[in-house]
């Protein structure tokens, strides 16, 4: 008799538990099925653009309460794919569009320099583009080859498919392949981390992310500075694109207009980017 009673009590608490789970799942499900307009605008794509897009979204949402912008990563190609399929209203991209992607609408929202970086202790501070190409092609394997110390060069590159690598390939390497034994990292941050720690290394990252722990090289005698990018002296500049499927309208246009406004461009400049209107080639 007693045992049966205990059993009943247990069952009751169990069913309470089940009811609780039921309500929780209801809440979760209902939040999933909110309409697209409530979920807000989705900007997905390049991890190079992401930190800046986050900043734009933050200020935009502060300025216009009620409007929501979600920024996601995934990579340039993934962003373009998302814009094409409609899973994001805006795809962000840190390289020029390829031929098979040109049916999409692109807006240049900012420009970014690409810096070739070495360890601060490296005595070399100036290389020609030709020398950089030979180092990344694996033809020059020792710093001696560019009149530096007698040390093997640790070449650090990005993974195949990355927007940063794509731009570097296009602007520096041309048809020449980056050699196979180069170390590969999957973000600007980890490339910088390795170069900051390895005295014999060389890598390339977004100019906006260069800090005191690494040294940006002069290329053909030109320093990677904002000024040199404005007056077209520095060659390694790539666009940051917002890509939409069809002309931007409504909420999408509002956000892009904000990004292109003086305020939006000022945010980009403060974060180390080059405003979209300037430095055009």
């Amino acid at each position: 008799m007693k045992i049966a009673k205990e059993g009943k009590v247990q069952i009751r608490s169990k069913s309470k538990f089940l009811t609780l789970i039921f309500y929780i799942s209801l809440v979760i499900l209902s939040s999933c099925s909110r309409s697209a307009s409530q979920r807000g605008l989705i900007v997905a794509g390049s991890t190079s653009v992401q930190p800046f897009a986050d900043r734009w979204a933050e200020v935009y949402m502060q300025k216009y309460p009620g409007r929501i912008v979600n920024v996601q990563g995934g990579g340039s190609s993934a962003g373009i794919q998302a814009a094409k399929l409609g899973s994001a209203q805006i795809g962000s991209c840190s390289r020029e569009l390829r031929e098979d992607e040109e049916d999409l609408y692109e807006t240049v929202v900012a420009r970014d320099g690409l810096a070739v970086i070495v360890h601060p202790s490296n005595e070399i501070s100036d290389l020609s583009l030709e020398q950089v190409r030979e180092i990344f092609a694996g033809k020059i394997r020792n710093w001696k080859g560019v009149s530096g110390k007698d040390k093997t060069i640790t070449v650090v590159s990005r993974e195949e498919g990355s927007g940063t690598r794509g731009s570097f390939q296009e602007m520096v390497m041309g048809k020449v392949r980056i050699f196979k034994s180069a170390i590969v990292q999957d973000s600007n941050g980890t490339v910088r981390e390795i170069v900051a720690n390895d005295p014999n290394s060389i890598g390339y990252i977004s100019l906006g992310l260069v800090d005191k722990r690494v040294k940006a090289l002069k290329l053909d005698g030109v320093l990677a500075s904002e000024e040199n990018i404005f007056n077209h002296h520095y060659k390694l500049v790539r666009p940051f694109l917002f890509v939409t499927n069809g002309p931007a309208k409504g909420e999408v246009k509002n956000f892009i207009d904000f990004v292109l406004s003086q305020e939006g461009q000022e945010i980009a400049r403060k974060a180390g980017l080059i405003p979209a209107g300037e430095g055009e080639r």
Partner: protein
Amino acid sequence: MKNLQRNEKLVQISLLAVAFSAVSILAIITVFIFEEGSPILFKHGIKNFLLGLNWYPTEQSFGLLPMIIGSLFVTLGALVIGVPFGLGCAIFLTEFSSRRLRQIIKPIIELLAGIPSVVYGFMGVIILVPFIRKTLGGPGLSVLAASFVLGIMILPTIISISIDSLQALPPSYREGSIALGATRWQTTKMVLLPAARSGIIASIILGMGRAIGETMAVIMIAGNAASIPRSILDPVRTLTSNIALEMGYASGEHRQALFATGIILFIIIMILNWIANITSARRKA
């Protein structure tokens, strides 16, 4: 009474559904990987994938040999470091230590298995990689660094399964050998290890499975160069890191080639599991 029977039936059916869904998820994953990856395997030829030396997926060059060799090198290195340590530890804890010491140390070792792999990778980057760079030269991100960290990561698997199989031996083996005048080490070497051999081999193969499947820690410390390493100080890329590194940006054929990488990894792991099953089945017989 009727109510109870109905409940029984209900429980049985729902448990069946749960068990079946686990199996069907595996089936769905298998079908999906093969469906996504096999077209490109056949289009460019399986031989080109398995034996090609150049991985330039955006230029239709899909040689996976450096990654296959990379995975095998790193796994082998992990075993060279993990097996002697793991086995030694297991022998010490079962044969030479007191019961109390074992009760303290074994859970601590099993805790190693609970540390997320990104933490191992981080420790590797902060401590091991600069150490290798300074003392042995090279970039530091290397086969050696990856092998060392993976060797530590597979320790709990090797130790706990080896301990279990040593402890499962009948006490008469130990007693008989010692009664014949053998020392403890002689007993271990000549009686216990051969008797527990299949269990120990199974533990090594399971550790190997863990090492070959590990991704996060390896990406952080192996350097990921898609070329065959010439020394243990060269950077290396494994099959798993190949997928994880490039999946964010991959599209079209490049993406399919990553699924093809998955197929090859899948087959290698299936073979390992199959060998593990055979050896552990032999142990029970």
